[in-house]
């Protein structure tokens, strides 16, 4: 599909990105709020009192796997490759802690903030991309 990158899916990627953008636009123009999944998750479990109502937060979170399941069915199944469960657990703590300390994640900073030219979000996005790249490089070098 993309010369030089046999594994890339640019068309599906762009289409998926447009859907994510529409999801963000709907919440922004419909409810007046940012689509930040880490903030919505912490609101849903009662770790944050800011943001949308608790019920709205849960409805958004329930929508995520339902939407993904529809696409998985239409595509005849997806075959994700995961790292081990202990590594997933360690990563989960870092992602959760880091997203709260840094006031956002890939959706809130990376999509909503960057598209608004927010200085904080651009710095956060460049930072987590850099540390993600460094992490994968270290894992590759170590084994």
């Amino acid at each position: 599909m993309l010369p030089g990158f046999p594994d890339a899916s640019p068309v599906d990627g762009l289409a998926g990105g447009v859907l994510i953008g529409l999801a963000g636009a709907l919440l922004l123009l419909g409810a007046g709020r940012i689509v930040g999944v880490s903030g919505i998750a912490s609101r849903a479990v009662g770790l944050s009192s800011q943001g949308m109502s608790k019920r709205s937060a849960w409805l958004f979170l329930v929508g995520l796997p339902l939407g993904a399941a529809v696409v998985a069915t239409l595509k005849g199944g997806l075959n994700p490759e995961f790292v081990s469960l202990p590594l997933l657990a360690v990563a989960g703590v870092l992602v959760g802690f880091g997203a709260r300390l840094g006031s956002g994640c890939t959706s809130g900073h990376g999509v909503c903030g960057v598209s608004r030219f927010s200085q904080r979000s651009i710095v956060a996005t460049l930072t987590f991309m850099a540390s993600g790249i460094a992490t994968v490089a270290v894992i590759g070098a170590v084994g």
Partner: protein
Amino acid sequence: MMRTYLPSLASGLLFGAGLALGGMTDPARIRGFLDIFGAWDPTLAFVMGGAVLVMAMAWRFVPRMTKPIFAQAFALPERSDLTPQLVTGAALFGIGWGLAGLCPGPGFAILAIAPLQAVVFLVSLIAGMALHRVMFKG
């Protein structure tokens, strides 16, 4: 009632569908994007690009609206200060993102595709958030 909840559910559905269509429910793709020194997979850049493009257009409507379509007022982040917390938090987030190839959105989206991995990731995600609350909010 329905008017306040509909945007959230519809947004979640669209978001989850977009993640799955864009391949973002596969951690191998995310780690492939971060693997710029190896077999780089640029797909995530297309996903981000598409999402940012649509959102950039959406932001242009906000100043012209007195209120959102289904709510009384906009409630948007207004901070612009760069703090050590922002950078430290983003750096830790990136380490976890690189280790697992998952961030919060895909973590929830894979509940329907790989429930075991999703639950392990999400329980520790919420534990990490709770740890932050205990450490910084008393």
